[in-house]
């Protein structure tokens, strides 16, 4: 007869905790990324034109291309991927960039950007006007479609947890930080410009200067309950035209008729990079 011995609970706990802990640590590790000096200000338009070959790095996990450049005024960030559900999640819940000038991984101060392709854009099959439907619309309907495509909720939210404060800013850079996005050929590109020094009309700034080491945490997906509710409202014809408000009052895109099937929230993604802000002398 076999004699079964029970393993002590503490050992069992340790047996599971160690690998799980290691996995969690591996998933959240900070990676180093070189910031390139930019002799000219980068135009924040969501396009790759200011990002030459070699100025970006592809991170296999989670599958995103990142680029960092700075001049003596701003830090420029580029985030690019080909995951449609991530783009949808950013549109709904935002792309958050946590900024830690101590070089650690504190989530006290950051910005959140809600731009990107609208829900309408996301519904375009294959990312383009497929199937010949658009060609069969009247000129007036085609124009309305174009206007709907342009109505994007480009807005930046500055998050200052220490001050328990969140401020919404236009994403055009008029208040300091700027953000833009573009989607092309199934690729989604997000470009941001963040003032290095605090000041300007918004007082927003990273609080770092060239040569200093900072940490940046990129976070998206993992839609919160509140955001999910907003998503449902915007998708479900909350506004008279069925193109309900996006996050934070922006003119979000919408899907008609309260149709809810096919909405899949992307899993939460988090990527931390540590970098030394570049200096004009290359230091």
């Amino acid at each position: 007869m076999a004699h079964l011995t029970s393993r002590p609970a503490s050992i069992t706990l340790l047996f599971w905790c160690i690998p799980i802990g290691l996995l969690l640590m591996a998933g959240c590790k900070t990676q180093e990324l070189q910031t390139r000096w930019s002799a000219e200000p980068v135009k924040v338009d969501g396009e790759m034109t200011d990002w030459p070959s070699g100025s970006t790095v592809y991170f296999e996990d989670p599958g995103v291309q990142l680029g960092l450049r700075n001049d003596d005024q701003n830090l420029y960030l580029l985030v690019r991927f080909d995951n449609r559900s991530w783009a949808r999640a950013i549109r709904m819940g935002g792309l958050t960039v946590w900024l830690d000038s101590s070089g650690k991984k504190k989530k006290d101060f950051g910005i959140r950007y809600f731009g990107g392709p609208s829900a309408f854009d996301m519904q375009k099959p294959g990312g383009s006007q497929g199937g010949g439907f658009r060609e069969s619309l009247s000129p007036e309907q085609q124009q309305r479609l174009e206007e709907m495509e342009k109505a994007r909720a480009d807005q930046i939210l500055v998050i200052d947890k220490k001050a328990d404060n969140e401020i919404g800013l236009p994403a055009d850079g008029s208040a300091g930080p700027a953000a833009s996005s573009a989607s092309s050929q199934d690729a989604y590109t997000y470009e941001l410009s963040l003032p290095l020094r605090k000041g300007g009309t918004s007082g927003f700034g990273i609080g770092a200067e060239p040569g200093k080491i900072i940490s940046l945490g990129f976070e998206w997906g993992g839609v919160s309950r509140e955001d999910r509710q907003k998503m449902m409202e915007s998708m479900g014809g909350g506004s008279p035209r069925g193109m309900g408000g996006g996050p934070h009052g922006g003119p979000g895109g919408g899907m008609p008729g309260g149709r809810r099937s096919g909405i899949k929230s992307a899993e939460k993604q988090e990527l931390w990079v540590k970098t030394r802000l570049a200096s004009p002398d290359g230091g």
Partner: protein
Amino acid sequence: MLFLAGCASVPSYQKYVGPVSASGGTGPNRETFQTLWEDRTVYFGRGTSGRGSGIFGTGFSALGGPGASAAGFPLDIAATFMDSLLLEAGFKHYSSLLEMSPQEQADFREAYQRRYDPAHHILIWCRLRTTWAELHLNLDRWNIFIEVQDDELNQYEPVEILEEQQIARPAMMEVPFEFEPGQGPARRQVHQKSMMLCFPRRDLLNNPVLSSKAKTLKLVFQENTDQKTKAEGTWVLRK
């Protein structure tokens, strides 16, 4: 080869499709336009076999040249079989999105039917991409046809090809496995073209091209000057 039925997000040169009802019929609308679109889209040609699609996954390898071999196929093709269920979902989608009145909906349908004539045509929407020279998008270079397998194998050429007027702006793509010294992955300009391929719904003897016996519908792109340069995508028709 593993069939990828139902894996809408997985690019495949072969898809299960069905049921394929007669043109103009209305089927259940439980599935969204987007889901149906992806279910009916096959990806084939350059770098799409066994790989994902998109900027990082698409294998725009620079190996070979036009006509050299299968690896030298210059086009990346996404083809969507516009069956009646997808058409119906598309009409409903755009009608709802633009909050069309009943009259506007009727006009929209009529305009589509006048342009593409789905009652008499098997419609396949095609998007072609290439990182090679733009001339590879010239349709004169290609022999395009469908193969329908039922009791026998029959081939049909399109009776009409309607190119989309709005041409997507060229974009830059990184080319996996190709590096510029000290510069990281190489980037190439991507050229793109979209079009509707209209194939006959009935053959010369007035028999339906897609009869109830049809098992597969295959779309073939074959270069005129080199028949070895060929790529094909297949829809397996479920009964």
